[in-house]
């Protein structure tokens, strides 16, 4: 046992000495939290809009003013002719163009059908839809008020935004960042470190030593477990105190589930290292097969239900998906273990699977 | 003129002095051994002479050029073989020779000629197109040495080139070194094997960054009153704090 602890301590020294990597390891979550929290927002405001007013009446000017004072739009300029539209869109200078046909206000006042055109740059779809929606609503509002009267038989809609009444976009990703960083440290670093030992041949030297195989691997992996856990806690703290993420549920449960996920990630890292001897291959496998799918298919960034069906099935084998649900559930909804049994069991099962696979690979390798 | 000259050559890494004011001269065609325990400063010294490391102070000249200001000219005239051999494991023997020949600016006909020469000398006809990674250690070693000589350098620096091979292979390697020296190439070799010291023309022994002795092997044995280089080293190492 004593030998084991000496070994673990040596591994800690290795890691702590590599200042640069440590810096980056703690820098990544910090940068991500800051970015996601403060820079990346789907909020729409000050979208650049051009107005082609071929009517130049009181009404067209009024509509234009309402749009510009709503906060959603910012005037890029007034166009003089339809020919300018294509060029200005192609240069990417505006998101939306508003076109009033000549004779607009005359026709409208006389009860004839008139048309206002809203042209949107739909290369960015959701923004285009949202902007379109806002512009249409403002115009409709103006039209309704101009004609006067309240509507009979109106259905009022009472919307309640559950779990996140202020629609704060900033903290939905904290679980995703956690999952990503934990995977990075636990799975990737572990697999690279173990692969490195194999590459340089020091693994065999260790195998010949009095420590048995399991102890060696455990010894290598424990520092990463500690590192991951600390990192995970840092992210949680950042999320709660800097971004205002709630902590509605049980902290102990949250930490326990975090440990479970770390454990799972470690076993995946060990598994990857058991199937390759090359550091570079281990790196690429961790990156391409583990990290990238996790970032993109776990529901962290893109909603799973919007993906094609085959990818939705695929997302079921991504551990991070379940972990993210667990964290969201505990922190934002405040639910307890009874609601999260399914996810927890799945994570446990996956961990067991990878451990078994790794053991099998290691046994055949040495014999 | 001596091919390698060092004058109070010193290298400090922060508070730690790896090489402390070493001074020596090596003549053309000499086999000069740089002995010492691990950590004594041998590798630091050789890397300064090769232009891989910038000295903290002192002077050095290799092949008539100054290591501070004319490092590039030095590099055209020296060969180097490190502990790691530094051949490309995923290239074949032929390809390695061709690569290094080209890097040193040899023309293609000359490279062809050299390749032929090396293959014959090392008897590699059967494996010339096999990847270097598949060769046994001893073959790699001798090949690395030959490649270091491909451009006919004036000086060849060998940093612990015989680590990890059996005595027979070492013997064969030293025969190649003799042959090169006989042709006029200066050999500068570091080693921690004391028996290899016997093979050198002159030997310097480094302890804790300083040169504690410099003479022919015979001369050293006489001065210290022992009959092996190992004995010489024991005496020198005893009175100092060694880093093992």
């Amino acid at each position, binding site marked *: 046992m004593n030998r084991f602890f000496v070994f673990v301590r040596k591994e800690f020294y290795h890691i702590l000495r590599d200042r*640069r990597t440590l810096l980056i390891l703690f820098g990544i979550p910090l940068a991500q939290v800051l970015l996601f929290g403060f820079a990346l927002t789907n909020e729409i405001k000050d979208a650049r809009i051009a107005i082609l007013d071929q009517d130049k009446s009181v009404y067209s000017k009024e509509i234009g003013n309402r749009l510009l004072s709503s906060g959603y739009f910012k005037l890029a300029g007034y166009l003089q002719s339809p020919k300018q539209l294509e060029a200005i869109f*192609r240069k990417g200078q505006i998101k939306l163009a508003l076109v009033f046909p000549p004779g607009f206000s005359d026709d409208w006042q006389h009860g004839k059908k008139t048309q*206002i055109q809203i042209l949107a740059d739909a290369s960015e779809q959701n923004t285009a839809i949202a902007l379109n929606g806002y512009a249409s609503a403002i115009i*409709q509002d103006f039209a309704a008020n101009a004609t006067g009267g309240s509507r009979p038989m109106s259905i009022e809609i009472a919307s309640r935004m559950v779990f996140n009444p202020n629609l704060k976009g900033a903290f939905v990703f904290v679980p995703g960042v956690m999952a990503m960083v934990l995977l990075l440290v636990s799975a990737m670093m572990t697999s690279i470190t173990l692969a490195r030992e194999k590459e340089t041949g020091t693994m065999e030297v260790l195998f010949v030593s009095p420590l048995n195989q399991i102890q060696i691997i455990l010894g290598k992996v424990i520092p990463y477990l500690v590192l991951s856990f600390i990192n995970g806690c840092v992210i949680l703290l950042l999320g709660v105190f800097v971004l205002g993420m709630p902590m509605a549920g049980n902290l102990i449960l949250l930490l326990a589930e975090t440990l479970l996920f770390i454990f799972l990630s470690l076993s995946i890292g060990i598994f990857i290292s058991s199937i390759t001897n090359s550091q570079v291959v281990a790196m690429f496998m961790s990156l391409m097969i583990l990290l990238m799918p996790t970032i993109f298919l776990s529901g962290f960034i893109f909603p799973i239900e919007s993906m094609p069906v085959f990818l939705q099935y695929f997302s079921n084998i991504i551990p991070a998906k379940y972990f993210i649900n667990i964290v969201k559930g505990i922190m934002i909804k405040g639910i307890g273990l009874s609601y999260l049994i399914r996810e927890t069991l799945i994570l446990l099962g996956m961990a067991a699977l990878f451990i078994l696979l790794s053991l099998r690979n290691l046994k055949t390798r040495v014999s | 003129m001596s091919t390698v000259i060092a004058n109070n050559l010193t290298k400090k890494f922060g508070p730690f002095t790896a090489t402390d004011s070493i001074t020596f001269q090596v003549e053309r065609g000499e086999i000069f051994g740089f002995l010492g325990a691990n950590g004594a400063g041998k590798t630091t010294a050789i890397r300064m002479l090769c232009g891989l490391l910038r000295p903290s102070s002192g002077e050095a000249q290799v092949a008539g050029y100054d290591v501070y200001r004319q490092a590039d000219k030095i590099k055209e005239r020296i060969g180097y073989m490190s502990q790691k051999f530094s051949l490309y494991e995923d290239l074949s023997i032929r390809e390695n020779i061709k690569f290094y020949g080209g890097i040193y600016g040899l023309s293609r006909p000359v490279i062809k000629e050299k390749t032929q020469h090396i293959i014959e000398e090392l008897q590699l006809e059967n494996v010339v197109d096999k990847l270097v990674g598949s060769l046994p250690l001893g073959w790699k070693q001798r090949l690395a040495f030959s490649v270091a000589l491909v451009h006919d350098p004036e000086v060849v620096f060998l940093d612990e080139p015989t680590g990890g091979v059996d005595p027979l292979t070492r013997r064969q390697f030293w025969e190649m070194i003799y042959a090169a020296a006989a042709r006029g190439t200066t050999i500068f070799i570091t080693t921690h094997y004391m028996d290899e010291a016997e093979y050198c023309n002159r030997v310097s022994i480094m302890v804790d960054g300083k040169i504690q002795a410099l003479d022919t092997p015979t001369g050293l044995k006489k001065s210290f009153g022992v009959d092996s280089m190992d004995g010489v080293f024991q005496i020198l190492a005893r009175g100092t704090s060694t880093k093992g």
Partner: protein
Amino acid sequence: MNRIAFLIEKEFKQIFRNTILLRIMIMMPIMQLILLSYAANFEVKNLKMAIIDQDRSTYSQRLISKFAHIHNFQLVAYPASYKMGEESLLKNQVDLVMVIPPHFESNLYRDQKSAVQLMVNAIDGSKAGIANSYASAIINDLNSEILVENYPLATQNNNTLEITNQYWYNPRLEYRTFMVPGILFELLILVGGLISALNIVREKEIGTQEQLNVTPIKKYQFVLGKLIPFVVIGMVQFTMGLLVAHFIFRIPQEGSLALLYAFAFIFLILSTGIGLLISNVSSTLQQAMFAAFFMLVLFILLSGLFSSTENMPKWAQYLNVINPLKYIIEAGRNIMLKGSNWYDLQSQFLALALMAVGINALAMLQYRKTS
């Protein structure tokens, strides 16, 4: 010059001989491209919905039927009570719950107004916002229908103002069209920057780098000897990615292919330069990997791939000025989707070219044959 040729020859030999790595380098980014492009969709659809109908009237049935026919919503549950509706939100079984209160229909006739309640899982704020507006639009739609049916004359005046919408460049409103050019370039910098960094650091680790430092090879020769092979490989990857984009995802190519390639070329020089910089400051593969990863994460997040750059706070926008991904994604999207030409994109090209030259020059100056 000749010496550079030797360097390049050796590089290619090594790359092609290492079949595992070659396969990984070429195939994996392509697989990522395919996978990501299928996944990359911010469209809000297939929302799971629960409806609690406490009225069971003709109008409530009509409302439910409207939702059943829209692809944005999937009706999965009909909870018996309000409490059970909340439970289903807690359990993550549904994304929103609509409650139609008792007397919904009769209230419309008697009081001229009625209410419907929506409970939306708002953990994802923007998704919730869009879900809410979709649902509201559908309810308003029913409202208009009811109005017309009951008061046919009074509604005529309200319809004289028509708003027509045109969605340019992406008339089918497919998110993919927007994302694929971005993903393509993101993968280029990932693979280009990372692979070149790993390659050089690997040589450092096994000692062949040192061997090169002892030779008379000049710094610029060394840099070019690495740059050229990796840029070539990058161009191959780019071509493959482009083929995937066209044939599998039907991304249009409105603009000049030559211009697109010119951008890709300069971008690859930049990426490899970044790889060189990283390798200069890393002594182990692990360090290189993390340095590359860190930088890439920053670049990718800021680049406008996932969210619009205009909405970012000022400090983020300043940071973005030195983000190569931002420029190349703009250029790529504009060329492929809008057919923008050289004159439209001059500033982007200039920015990229400046960065490419700067980064490579820095890498070269920083590289030390003598430490």
